[in-house]
């Protein structure tokens, strides 16, 4: 069984190297099939490992046969537990679904797209499974490099500008991460998670380890797009080709958050300052991110940008779950990661379908144009409702568990979760109703004037081929929450430092329905706004305009501003950690 561990990364890497070497000589369809099979194989191996570890306990694999010697860990190890292996399997499955979705999408250049996708997959799997801090950095970097190349793939003006913002901000993050690794190495002279944990416990309250935590957490939060590090995400996700956006929103940012969770729970559980910062600071940042993301989401008319901001909001909600440092919250975060990934992946695929069949992905321009492809509309409405808290499936299990964490008062957390869920769900539903049912006021000079740029993706695939993986993901998202909870009960048991919690917990029965009601009400209130008396509209605008204006003016799209925000964030961390 242990022999399977290195194969999780070796299979996609080997296929990628082979494809590069012989891509000139093979038909493009073969590359499609090879990439799909490699992703499925990696996912299957990870799933087998997850099930095995559930039954037989955690596995450790030492590369090169360098078993630890007394007092020193010589090599690099992979640590397999159900949560890590399960999440890695989910990523493999997602990449497989995406390669079906992208079948034939990237024919021009000798399988280069497939090669980068497979390397992306291997990097994310390695990131989830490794138990060595520098190795974590290496996979983090491979993942980033793959993402950079994929973002700019279209070579249009917006995609290049978005990719440049993305690269600059994330590169600075990776330097900070390496700085954190270096500080920990200076203090502990080891890079292994377990050895680091013990060394940090010995070091006690130490500025070096606290500083290292500050740098590492900030770097991972850049990847996970947490306020004030989130600005790059909406640029990058909105301009990348749709199949790439699927992976970005559904897997990559989640991987960043998973890394942050592992770091907090596996490496720093014995450090007092980071732990108390995690409880207070993570919760505050998560709440802010959820609210800002949802507000920005509501303001968008470009579908992919809308979905990108909704991802930011949901990442904030997940961070709220982690902040409790309890089994309930961590389990909730894991369920939410997977559930959100499935739903958001499906929604980005739908945006891709619209881009391939219609001129652009602008909600207003596309009004009523989706009638010919109404099955996509049904899928989009289901996705919007799931995003908005429909009490069914994995995402709902996550929402329930996160809502039930009580580190900072249930009402506060549930309120924030409700706001993020309802507003993002309502926005997507609004777009779906407008595009597929032709709802909404038709004449509004302000809106007609400023359409987003026209864009289109290749439309050489039949609708069913694009819709099938999307429906598959939605179907997976509808797996009953009970099954997810059973898995999570075992999985969180592998993190003994968590505060004990109840994995069957759920919030009030009426709360999800309130959320769904809000989703429908908000969406309809926008679409039917010309039925309201003018005075109501004027009052609404007077109330909301300043808020919208304020939030929007933060998102300037300029990389210099983003870097200033990043520095302010780090400075905030340093101040908070000095105080707690």
């Amino acid at each position: 069984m242990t022999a399977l561990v290195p194969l999780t990364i070796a299979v996609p890497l080997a296929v990628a190297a082979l494809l590069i070497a012989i891509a000139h000589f093979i038909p493009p369809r073969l590359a499609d099939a090879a990439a799909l099979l490699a992703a499925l194989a990696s996912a299957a191996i990870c799933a087998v490992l997850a099930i095995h570890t559930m039954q037989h306990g955690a596995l450790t694999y030492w590369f090169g046969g360098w078993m630890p010697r007394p007092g020193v860990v010589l090599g690099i190890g992979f640590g397999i537990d159900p949560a890590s292996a399960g999440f890695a399997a989910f990523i493999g499955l997602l990449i497989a679904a995406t390669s079906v979705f992208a079948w034939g999408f990237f024919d021009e250049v000798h399988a280069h797209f497939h090669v980068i996708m497979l390397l992306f997959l291997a990097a994310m799997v390695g990131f989830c499974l490794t138990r060595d801090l520098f190795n974590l950095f290496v996979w983090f970097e491979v993942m980033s490099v793959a993402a950079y190349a994929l973002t700019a793939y279209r070579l249009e003006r917006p995609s290049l500008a978005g990719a440049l913002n993305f690269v600059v901000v994330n590169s600075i993050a990776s330097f900070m991460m390496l700085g954190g690794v270096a500080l920990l190495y200076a203090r502990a002279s080891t890079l292994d998670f377990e050895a680091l944990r013990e060394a940090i416990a010995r070091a006690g309250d130490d500025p070096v380890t606290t500083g290292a935590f500050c740098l590492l957490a900030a770097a991972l939060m850049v990847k996970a797009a947490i306020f004030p590090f989130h600005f790059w995400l909406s640029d990058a996700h909105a301009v990348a080709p749709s199949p790439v956006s699927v992976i970005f929103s559904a897997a990559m940012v989640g991987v960043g958050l998973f890394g942050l969770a592992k770091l907090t729970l596996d490496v720093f559980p014995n450090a007092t300052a980071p732990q108390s910062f995690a409880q207070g600071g993570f919760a505050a940042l998560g709440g802010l991110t959820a609210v800002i993301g949802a507000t920005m989401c509501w303001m968008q008319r470009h579908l992919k940008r809308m979905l990108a901001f909704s991802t930011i909001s949901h990442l904030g909600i997940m961070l709220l779950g982690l902040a409790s440092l309890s089994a309930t919250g961590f389990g909730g975060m894991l369920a939410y990661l997977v559930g959100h990934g499935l739903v958001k992946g499906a929604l980005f695929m739908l945006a891709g379908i619209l881009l391939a069949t219609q001129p652009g992905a602008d909600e207003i321009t596309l009004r009523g144009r989706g009638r010919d492809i109404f099955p996509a509309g049904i899928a989009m409405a289901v996705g919007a409702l799931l995003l908005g808290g429909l009490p069914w499936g994995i995402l709902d299990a996550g929402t329930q568990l996160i809502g039930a964490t009580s580190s900072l008062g249930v009402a506060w957390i549930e309120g924030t979760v409700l706001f993020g869920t309802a507003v993002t769900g309502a926005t997507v539903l609004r777009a779906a109703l407008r595009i597929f049912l032709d709802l909404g006021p038709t004449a509004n000079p302000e809106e007609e004037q400023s359409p987003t740029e026209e864009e289109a993706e290749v439309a050489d695939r039949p609708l069913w081929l694009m819709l099938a993986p999307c429906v598959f993901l939605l179907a997976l998202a509808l797996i009953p929450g009970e099954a997810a909870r059973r898995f999570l009960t075992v999985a969180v048991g592998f993190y003994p430092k968590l505060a004990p919690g109840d994995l069957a917990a759920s919030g009030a029965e009426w709360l999800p329905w309130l959320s769904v009601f809000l989703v429908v009400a908000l969406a309809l209130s926008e679409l039917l706004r010309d039925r309201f008396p003018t005075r109501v509209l004027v009052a609404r605008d007077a109330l909301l305009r300043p808020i919208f204006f304020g939030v929007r003016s933060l998102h300037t799209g300029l990389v210099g501003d983003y870097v200033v925000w990043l520095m302010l964030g780090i400075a905030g961390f340093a101040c908070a950690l000095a105080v707690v």
Partner: protein
Amino acid sequence: MSVLPWLVAAWLFCVGIYGIVTSRNFVHLIGCLSVCQSSTYVLLLGIGYQWGAVAPIFYDHPPGTPAVDPVVQALVLTDIVVGATVTALLLAMALQVSRKHETLDPQKLRPFIDEGRR
């Protein structure tokens, strides 16, 4: 004196960031990013250094001679690859940007001109 290398690392990082924040040309910005990165080289190599020790190569010196930490040097080697790859990608992007539209000014380059509505 014993804190000087760490302060140099911090200074390099911050001065690189200053350059990025005020940059008016993307090629300059890429250079600043490399300055930022060199702070990690200084930090890592500084951490492994030992007074009076030789390089971790036991060709002229017999094994057992005190040597500086080989691990950080290997880490820096990986870090250099990171720098090279990211710089290559960034330069390729900058090249395409300058082809597509005349400016290379980061303060004029936004992915979206029209932000939202209302």
